[in-house]
């Protein structure tokens, strides 16, 4: 009787110890978590990305390749830009300086030229926001197949002064410094 009770008690204690020992984070085996990531451009194929310019700290704009189904026109690219960065892009630290209430009233392209009419006063946009719009417009498909540096943009608003012949100035494009992080 006594021996049986002692056995019960020790078995109970052993179980409790086992439970307590399970606290903490234990290593696991390899666990599969689905499909691989995708998005690598096959070398030698034509680029079919939308190239969008977003602001990035500490200032300046960065080009961003967003995968697209086919060739992206300047009109489509500017509309995409207006929608802002997606979650993954936001996590990379990219953001848009364009005010939320600014809409594209009209956009038209001709040989080496893009005309964009925005709601509000285009002159009151920050230089970075203006660069976002201009660079996004010129780096996507514009009739005439000119290099982006030679395409000009006529930017105007529903009020205020129009700003003709804007160009994308590459020197404003921010390049992050290269550093070697240690894990």
């Amino acid at each position, binding site marked *: 009787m006594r021996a049986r009770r002692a056995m019960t008690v020790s078995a*109970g204690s052993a179980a*409790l110890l086992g*439970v307590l020992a*399970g*606290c*903490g*984070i*234990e*290593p*696991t*085996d*390899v*666990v*599969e*978590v*689905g*499909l*691989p*990531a*995708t*998005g*690598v*451009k*096959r*070398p030698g194929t034509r680029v079919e*990305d939308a190239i969008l310019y977003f602001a990035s700290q500490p200032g300046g704009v960065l080009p*961003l*390749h*967003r*995968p697209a189904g086919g060739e992206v026109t300047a009109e489509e690219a500017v509309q995409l830009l207006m929608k802002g960065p*997606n*979650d*993954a*892009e936001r*996590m*990379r*630290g990219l953001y848009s300086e364009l005010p939320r209430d600014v809409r594209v009233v009209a956009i038209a392209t001709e040989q080496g030229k893009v005309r964009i009419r925005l709601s509000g006063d285009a002159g009151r946009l920050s230089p970075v926001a203006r660069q976002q719009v201009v660079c996004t417009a010129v780096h996507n498909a514009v009739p005439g197949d000119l290099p982006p540096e030679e395409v000009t943009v006529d930017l105007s608003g529903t009020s205020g002064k129009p700003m003709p012949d804007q160009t994308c100035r590459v020197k404003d494009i921010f390049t*992050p410094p*290269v*550093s*070697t*992080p*240690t*894990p």
Partner: protein
Amino acid sequence: MRRGTAVRRPVLRRPDLGTVARGLRARLVVGFLLVAALSALITAALTFKEARNAILKRTQDTAVQQLRSQVASQVPDLRFPPSNTDLLKFTQGLERAGQTQHWFVHARYKGGRMQPDNVGLGKDMDVRFPPGVRDKVGAGVAAFQRIDLDGDPVLVIGLPVTYRDSSEKSGLEVYALVPLREDEANVRALVNAAQSGAVPALALSVVPALIAARGVLRPVRELRRATQKITEGELDTRLKVTGRDELADLSRTFNDMAAALEENVAELRRMEANSRRFAADVSHELRTPLAAMTAVVDVLDEDAAGLDPDTAYAVRLISEETGKLARMVEDLMEISRFDAGAAALHLDEVDVAETVRKTVQARGWQDKVTTDLPRGVRARLDPRRIDVVVANLIGNALRHGGEPVGIAVRVARHPDRGEDRLLIEVADNGPGIDPEVLPHVFDRFYKADAARVRSEGSGLGLAITSENVRLHHGTVMAANAPAGGAVFTVDLPLRTGEEEV
């Protein structure tokens, strides 16, 4: 029940520590504590396990999903096939994007060296990027593994990257090491919370345990008290029965038992009283005719000398037997007085040696009895009753034992109570008493020798002695001396009645 019989009282002692530890209360409390501890622990353990798994699963899912979306978002910017510098820039971009995860990203192309190239080869490589994960990634399957890196839990995610719009492997592999420090802290907080929750739960469980113990112990305590009362003679004690549980059943049974006991005892008492009254009545009724008979027989006895020898013999026999009958009736009446509780002590301060000497002289036993009577022993007792006691003992010794009979008086200190006792010893030089008879010598009408049916004694002498001694709150014992012969010892308090005032 005989009056004056000392009732053995149950001793009301405080239970010692061992009894308390094994008592019902302690056992109930321990039982409750064990159950509470077990349930608290199991609940805490299960909750903890679920919560920990949920925390880790969320972290893992978030990390994998973020890594996948970041790779998908940033890989279009990567020139392909990438140089080591391109890979380095790519991993830096991913690390910057994973600031909320604090992950460290490495990448390699077609089985080349990991970039950034700060990881050792061989063992270090295997530790940081377990072969299991690398094999899965090599086979084109995303995988993760939780490992222990220098004592810290780390999540290793391996993510192969395919070409756009096809499931063909591009050869690019991305690995992220996600430290689980925050999750570990959360898990530790969970453990602490479980612990700090279990201790008050344990402490609280003592309260219901005590309440339950009280509920069980109160009837038990009452039962104990009632049993004690019954033992002390209060046979009308009954328990209040409440509820319908086992303890109530026990109380009910106890009441039944007490009722039966009371009834039986009352019946026995009634029967005993009847028989005593009968004996008293009989002896009383016999006295008057006996007195007349004695008077007539005495007259006849005086004239016996003038009768013819046969008639004279018959007359002397009748006279003798009538005297014996008269003594027996006297003894019977004496016993009846004891039984009726009518015997009273008439205490007096006397010299014990003087009292005993008077007794011996009055019976004319000086020649047959040797006395050892120290002078100056004074005691408070009923001299008439002590006279009866001494006379009965000596008479008994003379009848059944051998001469010379010795009587000795001593004063001794009681070993337990520390009071002075008066000891009167009567010893004879006979063959002693059969050990089987010894316990019965003070019984009424008990004959030591069944063959010797007729004797001079009434058969009540020693019983009357015993009652007289009892009346003095003393005891009388019969024993055999080592040298042979019976020894009767009367043990009386030296000052009867004083300690009771």
